[in-house]
């Protein structure tokens, strides 16, 4: 029971120190204390607790392994000798390092084009979605907006119903958005979830900021661009990541809307490779003739390597960007969770 008293005495020592150096008043002292985190109450670990600790550490190591190893495996196989790869000998370190798989993949007809399409839709789609989310999120906080509640519900309600594949497809066809790059962009531009995230975040910004600007004569747009936008950068970063990932991973819209090979995305192209590799592999397993078997094996092993290389190409952007943004959205989501 001596602990709480220790905390208090530590705090008072800090207070005295600050007073001594002539630090500011109450508010100043309080703000400095936000950084000071008292040590946890120490407790003796029982045997069960220690056992649980061990189990926890080991279990999570396994879970982490299960999440990472598949990607590591694919990666080392794409830079290893293809035959060794097909035999399954490459599982710890690369064997027979070479980069020709990537060179081959770069030459595959249509793959470069698919990459361009994927990148283009990710960039354009993300920009539009983020702008819409930030702008609408802000506008729905404006008291003056005509029938604000009505329009907000109008937009938010779309989260809860879905017209279905066929009606959606027919709409897109009537609008001329099939086999059209903008069919990837416009339908997903307005996302109620992101708008709500932004709206909640804007509501947490002190209204004095907006009020002061308005007294100085700023119009709605000026307030948005000059005051709000700089302040809500964290949530914008969060939404940008979500939107970008959604665009990059998008598969169903290509499947439903697009028959023109020039508009295929990387995801769709990868899916096609997986399908052809599948049929090839089952041919290998069931084939009896030695000659054709060897031939098929040769094709299959290259096919496997190509498939894995394309997988790496599709997954790498996400793996590169992800760790950097992870801290952004954990924060952003938690703010949203607390407020919402």
């Amino acid at each position, binding site marked *: 029971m001596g602990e709480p008293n220790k905390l208090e005495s530590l705090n008072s020592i800090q207070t005295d120190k600050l007073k001594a150096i002539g630090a500011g008043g109450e508010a100043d002292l309080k703000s400095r204390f936000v950084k000071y985190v008292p040590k946890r109450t120490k407790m003796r670990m*029982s045997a069960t607790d220690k056992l649980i600790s061990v189990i926890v550490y080991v279990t999570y190591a396994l879970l982490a392994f299960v999440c990472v190893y598949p990607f590591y495996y694919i990666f080392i196989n794409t830079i290893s000798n293809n035959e060794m790869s*097909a035999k399954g000998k490459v599982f710890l370190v690369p064997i027979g390092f070479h980069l020709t798989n990537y060179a081959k993949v770069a030459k595959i007809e249509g793959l470069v084009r698919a990459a361009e399409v994927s990148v283009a839709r990710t960039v354009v789609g993300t920009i539009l979605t983020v702008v819409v989310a930030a702008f609408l999120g802000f506008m729905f906080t404006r008291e003056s907006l*005509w029938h604000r509640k009505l329009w907000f519900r109008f937009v938010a309600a779309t989260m809860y119903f879905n017209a279905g594949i066929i*009606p959606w497809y027919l709409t897109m066809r009537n609008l001329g958005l099939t086999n059209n790059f903008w069919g990837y962009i416009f*339908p997903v531009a*307005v996302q109620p979830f992101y708008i709500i995230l932004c709206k909640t975040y804007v509501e947490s910004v002190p209204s004095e900021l907006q009020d002061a600007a308005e007294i100085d004569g700023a119009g709605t747009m000026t307030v948005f661009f000059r005051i709000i936008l700089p302040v809500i950068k964290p949530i914008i970063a969060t939404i940008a990541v979500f939107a970008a990932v959604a665009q990059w991973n998008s598969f169903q819209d290509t499947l439903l809307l697009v028959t023109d090979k020039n508009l295929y995305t990387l995801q769709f192209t990868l899916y096609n490779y997986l399908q052809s590799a599948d049929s090839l592999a089952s041919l290998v*397993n069931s084939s009896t003739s030695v000659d054709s078997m060897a031939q098929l094996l040769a094709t299959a092993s290259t096919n496997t390597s190509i498939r894995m290389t394309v997988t790496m190409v599709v997954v790498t952007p996400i793996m590169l960007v992800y760790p950097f943004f992870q801290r952004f959205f954990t924060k952003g989501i938690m703010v949203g969770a607390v407020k919402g």
Partner: protein
Amino acid sequence: MQGMKRRGLTKKQIRGYREFLYILPFLLLVLIFSYYPLYGWVYAFFDYRPPAPLSASKFVGFKWFVYMVENPTRLKKLLEVLRNTFAISGISLFFSWFPMVFAIFLNEIKCVPYKKFVQTVTTLPNFISWVLVFSVAFTIFNGDGVISNLAVNMGWIDRPVNYLLNSDHMWFKMWLWLTWKNAGWAAIMYLAAITGIDEELIEAAKVDGASRMKIIWHITIPGILPTYFVLVMLNLASFLNNGMEQYFVFRNQFNSDYINVLDLYVYDLSREIGGYPLSTAFSILKSIVSITLLFATNWISKKIRGTSII
């Protein structure tokens, strides 16, 4: 400060109208892409065969709705699809505690760098597409995949085996992949809820000599139970909506009997000749049931917790 009155409109009102004009383009987008497609429901009541326009098609009322239960083959297929959907959603619901437990014990890790590492790594699968997940599955379980090669090299089996062509325990396997992809991400929400638990409660318990398991059982779990409840209710509301992508990429001729879920079936119907009306009829029914479920779970939430979820 009084707004200057000018012909009955205050400055604020004028600004209000102008702001509405600013958002009007986006409201139109919502109208076109979310509300207008609902008009497409009308196609379920016609004998619509493209490329003939709707006006040239015969109105048939509820023919297609009746057809889906009267025709024996269709009915059998429908029941099978519903069975799959219920099984997969049911398993998901049954194991819905998994992300919560994942988060609780993740929180128990004292070493912060290790904790952050595990969290980062386990949320990674959430950000890859289902096509990529299938590619990973293919790499591991295919005839020339990790498991098969390991088994052959260890001498456990003689010939390579393609585990993906195996239709045993399909629903459980689908749940496993779904969990591999989503658990880490869902855990973030629970972790946020855990940090919201009053520190003093935990300190008091420690001072009273509570072991870690006791703290988890008596403080942590009750603390995040509201979050869990909301998520279970939302899961319940989307019981029929399994999504289509996961099952589409994993489907092959061997497992299709078990993997066809409602969303995928609706897609398959749309691929059939003259299948638009039937597919649309299913979409309509599915939407009605989903909305009903949503209101039902919302009502349950109000009764039990006193707050609604929408």
